[in-house]
């Protein structure tokens, strides 16, 4: 893992004290609310429905056990004993007091964390594949580039007052678990000619009220040129992105209105201008960062663990958890374990201070003290010996953290919705809870197979509903909540935007409709088909009719 040096530490400390001064000047009126808003947003502080919300960055989704423990302590000390992990590898605290926020930021700085640029019209927390560095299908670890981008984008003099927010995601694997095609910039590590590493660059993807799949800007940018290339994209966007209408201000609209070809040409022109800029080379810095992400010393282990096989035979619940919640690791005898934050009836992504401490202890005991946060709002233990899985599972199970549902139907992604958010038009959490209860039966869940249900409580789409196999969008229609369903969305390399199904459902009817659709799918699926495959084989209109079958 990356560790701060004296300069990183000083930078974050100065930023905290700068923010402390900004809060004071807001309170004296030296800063008016319009002036203060972007400053507090750039430090992760939102004004929500009932209170302030502080969003803390977990850069490229990686955190240490020590950091997780501190998040738990902050939840207990300054909040109501819990925090909410988001789809963009942040954690949100929902009840901090404004006066406490600088102190919270200091506590975060104590463990090399911050809330810098987790909101506002600037370059946001850089996200990455939650299995980065350990996935069996990985070409190279994208996190050194993530750290380089984190540093480069921090308090950037030129790109801190952009037309709108700007999100960058990275992956180094063949499968896209970082949703790169729906980011302002998506980067995929690829091997160029002669095995040289570089990035395939995507731009202009996004969800929100105008969902768009990004365009490929370039097939290959050598790693050494990446910052310059990103800088060129940012400069074109900062100069030309629309500022007359906040709903048309994202880079996706600029690319859409300009046309991909013109946009590409302009980026290339700017890139050519700065290509030989002596100020830019960063290879040396990248090499320094890379050393922090060198693979740990894995033990030479047999690919199959006998102890694991025995424990699975003896305990079917454990066997199910292993089947559902573990993923292929690049090192023999090791595995990636997903801790689901979607217990039956729970709030997706929420964890209490106690749960955070258990997860930290689990990481210390069984995962080389490291954890990850996923876009599915779950926690990942990246380095678990297969032979330790049973002990890990027992520890998690005792804490109620062993739900066997990773990527199954009850692994619902949901934004906070109207229970917290000032923008929401409907509640999302109760719908998510109802789904986890309705489909709680583990055998049924495994039978249904992998499926993504994603819920947003307004058209801003924080719950990523556009990319759910089943997407649910909560709206307000003549004073009542109405839930519109989209089908066929896909956040991965085979990216697709879900198609709308038809009239919305009332809160009390939406889960019934989903149940009808699931039963229809189970009845019509062919051998081994996933929901997605059945959807594509039967087509949208057949599947959508199943939602309304009883109407």
């Amino acid at each position, binding site marked *: 893992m990356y560790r701060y040096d004296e300069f990183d530490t000083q930078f974050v400390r100065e930023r905290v*004290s700068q923010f402390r001064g900004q809060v004071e*000047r807001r309170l004296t009126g030296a800063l008016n609310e319009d002036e203060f808003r972007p400053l507090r947003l750039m430090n992760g502080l939102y004004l929500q429905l009932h209170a302030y919300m502080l969003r803390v960055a977990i850069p490229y989704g990686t955190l240490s056990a020590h950091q997780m423990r501190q998040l738990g302590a902050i939840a207990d000390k300054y909040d109501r004993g819990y925090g909410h992990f988001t789809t963009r590898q942040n954690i949100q605290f929902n009840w901090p007091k404004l006066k406490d926020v600088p102190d919270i930021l200091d506590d975060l700085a104590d463990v090399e964390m911050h809330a810098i640029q987790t909101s506002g019209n600037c370059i946001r927390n850089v996200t990455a594949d939650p299995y980065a560095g350990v996935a069996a299908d990985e070409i190279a670890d994208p996190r050194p580039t993530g750290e380089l981008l984190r540093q480069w984008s921090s308090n950037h*003099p030129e790109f801190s007052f952009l037309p709108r927010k700007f999100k960058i995601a990275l992956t180094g694997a063949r499968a896209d678990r970082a949703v790169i095609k729906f980011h302002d910039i998506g980067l995929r590590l690829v091997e160029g000619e002669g095995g040289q590493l570089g990035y395939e660059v995507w731009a202009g993807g996004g969800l929100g009220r105008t969902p768009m799949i990004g365009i490929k800007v370039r097939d290959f940018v050598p790693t050494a040129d990446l910052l310059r290339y990103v800088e060129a994209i940012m400069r074109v966007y900062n100069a030309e992105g629309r500022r007359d209408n906040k709903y048309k201000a994202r880079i996706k609209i600029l690319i859409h209105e300009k046309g991909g070809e013109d946009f590409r040409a302009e980026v290339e022109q700017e890139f050519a201008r700065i290509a030989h800029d002596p100020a830019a080379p960063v290879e040396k810095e990248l090499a320094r960062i890379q050393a922090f992400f060198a693979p740990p010393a894995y033990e030479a282990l047999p690919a199959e663990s006998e102890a694991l096989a025995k424990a699975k035979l003896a305990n079917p619940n454990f066997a199910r958890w292993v089947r559902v919640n573990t993923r292929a690791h690049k090192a023999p005898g090791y595995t990636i374990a997903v801790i689901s934050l979607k217990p039956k009836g729970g709030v997706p992504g929420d964890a209490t201070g106690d749960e955070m401490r258990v997860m930290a202890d689990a990481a210390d005991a069984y995962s080389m003290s490291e954890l990850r946060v996923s876009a599915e709002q779950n926690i990942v233990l990246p380095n678990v010996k297969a032979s330790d899985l049973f002990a890990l599972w027992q520890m998690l199970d005792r804490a109620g953290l062993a739900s066997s549902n990773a990527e199954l139907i009850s692994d619902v992604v949901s934004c906070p919705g109207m229970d917290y958010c000032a923008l929401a038009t409907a509640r999302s959490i109760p719908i998510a809870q109802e789904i986890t209860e309705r489909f709680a039966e583990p055998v049924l869940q495994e039978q249904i197979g992998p499926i993504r249900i994603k819920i947003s409580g307004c058209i801003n789409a924080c719950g990523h509903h556009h990319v759910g196999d089943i997407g649910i969008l909560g709206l307000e229609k003549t004073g009542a909540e109405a839930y519109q369903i989209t089908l066929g969305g896909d956040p991965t390399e085979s990216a697709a935007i879900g198609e709308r199904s038809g009239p919305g459902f009332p809160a009390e009817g939406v889960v019934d409709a989903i149940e009808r659709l699931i039963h229809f799918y189970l009845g019509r699926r062919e051998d081994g088909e996933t929901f997605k495959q059945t959807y594509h084989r039967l087509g949208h209109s057949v599947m959508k009719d199943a939602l309304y079958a009883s109407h």
Partner: protein
Amino acid sequence: MPLIKDGHFVADDWSRPVEGEPAVAGAKLILAFARLEAEASDLIEAGHAVGVEITNDTDPAALEPWFDRLALIVVPFPRAADGRGFSIATRLRRLGYRGELRASGHLIADQYTLARSCGFDTVEISDAQAARQPEPHWLEAEHAMSLAYQRGYGPLRNILGARWAAQ
């Protein structure tokens, strides 16, 4: 309108001449970009220092032929949240403009270091804003951050350079 230089409020010796009125002898004059072509050469010949005020959708490259003759370029900030001017300044500096660069309009003290880093020398704000954000705020803002990660921008100590020096 107050002008800020090196964290201090200073007198502004530039003026914006009204079109059609004769300029006071020796005055330093800021012209709108549209007037540059027609008026600048004569004014420079008559001994005036000439600056230009652009809009924030002007392509900085359009000013390149004028760089040697311009003593000042003024870049507007219609709202503090509109950061186009930061890219314009960066481009002007990278194109080789060495004269004074001024940010004018709504820029708050908290953006002062960013503006300096992008190449601005001076900031011009409204009287109302100066009343809320007096000189000490700007002096303080200058020292709020002492380090920056980005290379190719000034004047803060560069972290990458410092690291390499320490190695």
